[in-house]
């Protein structure tokens, strides 16, 4: 009797296995969370050291226009003004998004509404392939094609915000296009049929119905492209000129947060002000990617209503 009772009430082999599998898979998930938390923890603790340990004021860091972390100004305060890089980063991001948006949306509309057959045959595979092209390749092409072209057209060295924006424009174009195509395809067919049944021309249908219905999705695609452009390091670093100066026009060599970071972090000593200031730039990057994430979420929520 006891034997039977024991056999029936003790945990079965299958249950044990199941518990094991459950805990192993949970462990994997916890590991990923630990990575996210420690990235934020490490970058924040390093990046905030500029303000707490080296006593640089946040305001002068964000608005100062002189970036020479090794030197001090007349008052003995270190010269860590990140404004040139912040402006540079935002400038290339917005410019590239501004150029990419009409092309991406136009191409996506063409692929879904005007010529779905050709879209599926030529454009779809090409955009999908280009999404996967490594960013250094974009940088290399920028260096050998875009920069000489800029030099030829506008004079100067050719390196600068405009060259950076052009490279980023080509880089985010496939991403934004394919995301826009997805949202346009998700617009229900009955919308199109209803618009056409009311006597709308194809353009009226596209402009007044489809693009409006797909606006949240298109905005998400653009913000996603901007996030990618903002965080892109090497492609931009290769063409932007890397001079930590306020960009006074689109052709003057300038710098972005990422380009100064990749250049500087290996040449500074851990724990020094020069190094901490670079980590503060990394922290700005981190926070901005968080902001882009929140914006995408907010758009998604509004679109869902």
């Amino acid at each position: 009797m006891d034997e039977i009772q024991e056999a029936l009430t003790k945990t079965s082999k299958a249950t044990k296995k199941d518990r094991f599998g459950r805990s192993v898979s949970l462990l994997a998930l916890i590991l990923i969370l630990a990575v996210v938390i420690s990235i934020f923890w490490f970058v924040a603790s390093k990046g905030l050291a500029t303000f707490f340990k080296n006593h640089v004021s946040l305001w002068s860091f964000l608005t100062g226009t002189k970036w020479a972390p090794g030197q001090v100004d007349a008052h003995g305060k270190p010269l860590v003004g990140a404004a040139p890089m912040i402006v540079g980063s935002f400038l290339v991001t917005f410019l590239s998004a501004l150029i990419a948006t009409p092309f991406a949306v136009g191409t996506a509309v063409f692929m879904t509404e005007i010529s779905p057959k050709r879209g599926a045959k030529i454009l779809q595979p090409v955009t999908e392939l280009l999404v996967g092209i490594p960013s250094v390749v974009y940088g290399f092409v920028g260096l050998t094609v875009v920069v000489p072209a800029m030099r030829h057209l506008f004079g100067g060295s050719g390196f600068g915000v405009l060259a950076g924006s052009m490279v980023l424009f080509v880089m985010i174009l496939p991403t934004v296009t394919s995301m826009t195509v997805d949202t346009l395809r998700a617009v229900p067919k009955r919308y199109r049929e209803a618009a056409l049944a009311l006597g709308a021309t194809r353009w009226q249908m596209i402009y007044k119905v489809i693009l409006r219905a797909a606006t949240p999705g298109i905005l998400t695609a653009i913000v996603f492209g901007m996030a990618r452009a903002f965080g892109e390091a090497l492609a931009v670093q290769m063409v932007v000129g890397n001079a930590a100066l306020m960009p006074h026009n689109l052709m003057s060599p300038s710098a972005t947060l990422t380009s100064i970071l990749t250049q500087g972090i290996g040449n500074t000593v851990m724990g020094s002000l020069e190094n901490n200031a670079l980590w503060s730039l990394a922290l700005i990057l981190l926070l901005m990617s968080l902001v882009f994430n929140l914006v995408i979420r907010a758009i998604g929520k509004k679109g869902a209503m």
Partner: protein
Amino acid sequence: MNAKQVDKIATGILYTIAGFVILVLLALLGYILVQGVPNLSWHFLTAPAEAFSAGGGIGIQLFNSFYLLILTMVISFPIALGAGIYLNEYANQKSKVIEVIRTMIEILSSLPSVVVGLFGFLLFVVQLKLGFSLLSGAIALTFFNLPLLTRSVEESLRTIPNLQREAGSALGLSRFETIGHVILPAALPSIMTGVVLSAGRVFGEAAALIYTAGQSAPALNFADWNPFNATSPLNVMRPAETLAVHIWKINSEGIMPDAAAVSAGASAVLVIAVLLFNFCARYFSKVLYRQLTSSK
């Protein structure tokens, strides 16, 4: 102007835009291949790089890229698989905690790769004293790869109909057994598609590697396969410049006379590799399609 004319003009403009975009994209692709492919030769693909003179190859960098890719996949696939299984099979989908976790994974996937690389540099190269090494690089790439891979595993599992899970339970299988014997085999082609696509991304990544796997490629002895020897190709503690890092490096600070030719060739190799990964992914999704529709 009436609506019909506007329609015609708008259509014309859309044709122009699409044509322009096709032109730009094809020109880009064509430029890379036309510039690069003539530089490709057996010597170029196998010879070590030269620092100061022309005629160097990309042999070591190419090997490093593939080795690093394999290491990264070996580390990240089990973790992503586990996390994906938990999220789709075990987790309570309505729980707030799971929602927060999903958000965090999404945030990780949107972090700039340079930040992930710097974190790897700080934690592994500096604090854990692993130095610039393949191992540091592989772990940094794992961080970069995990969120996307996890999501693709999760989505692959989600496409398996609940009927299969119920059938497993009806046969008296535990959930774990159902996952192992029923769900995973069914989801395998789709999971493989995700793995191959992420492999393409990992293969071309450079920003996360500059300060983790390093920017130097010491000479390797390809006759020595003992992973504990310093010059062995299998040694995971050696610094290893990959192909993508090599392109960046010779373009920003290279002094070899044929830097443009080398980077053109290396870019073409990268692009061709990405093409191959894409074709593989397509092949797997074809297998998936065949499996789902039981067509031949």
